[in-house]
């Protein structure tokens, strides 16, 4: 299945893009997806403890199973205003 990954602010700068598609085999949780993302962009992992994750535009707590076509966003600490 395909997961649509979104990166913002500092994470977007590291990856050089704000959007990518990650293809996964069989079942995949957010944690599994993060591992794949960190393999592609090792420096993104250093932000892991401060980054919040949103699935389909809602913050998640802990780990959840993903489904085909889900949109997973990696959000550094926000600083609007």
């Amino acid at each position, binding site marked *: 299945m395909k997961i649509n990954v*979104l990166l*913002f*602010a*500092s994470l*977007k*700068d590291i990856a050089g893009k704000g959007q990518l598609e990650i293809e996964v085999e069989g079942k995949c949780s957010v944690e599994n997806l993060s591992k794949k993302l960190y393999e592609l962009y090792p420096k993104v992992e250093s932000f892991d403890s*401060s980054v919040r994750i*949103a699935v389909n*535009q*809602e*913050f998640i707590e802990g780990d959840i199973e993903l489904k085909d076509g889900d949109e997973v*966003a990696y*959000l*550094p*600490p*926000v*600083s*609007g*205003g």
Partner: protein
Amino acid sequence: MKVEITTEAIDPTVISSSVKNIEAGAVLTFLGTARKTSRGREVTYLEYDAYPEMAEKKMAFILGELKEKYNITDGAFVHRIGRVELGENIVVIAVSAPHSQEAFDACRYAVKRLKSIVPIWKKEVWADGEEWIGYEGELYE
């Protein structure tokens, strides 16, 4: 209740007027603007990034909270993104409420919630560098 993420300049007077109604005796508008000095450094300009769809959802959620907690009769929440020059408007939060106290409390709460749950990010650009800023104050989760 209006929410918007925009790359265009924001006019606070238009937004402020839009929340007036005869149930309200108070209209309060918070206007956030781009400041020259930040943590001892001179800013050249600011750059905002956002997750626009989710940001607008969260802004609408906050206006809903204001209605529930502070009894506001209407509210509008507009945030600019992209490049913002010094002195330009960044964010407008306008609320109307029966009485001034509720309007003040609502605006103060909305600003804190903006800095806690709305996916918008500020980059400060100086003459010799730049940095994405993370909010360092107390979070209102």
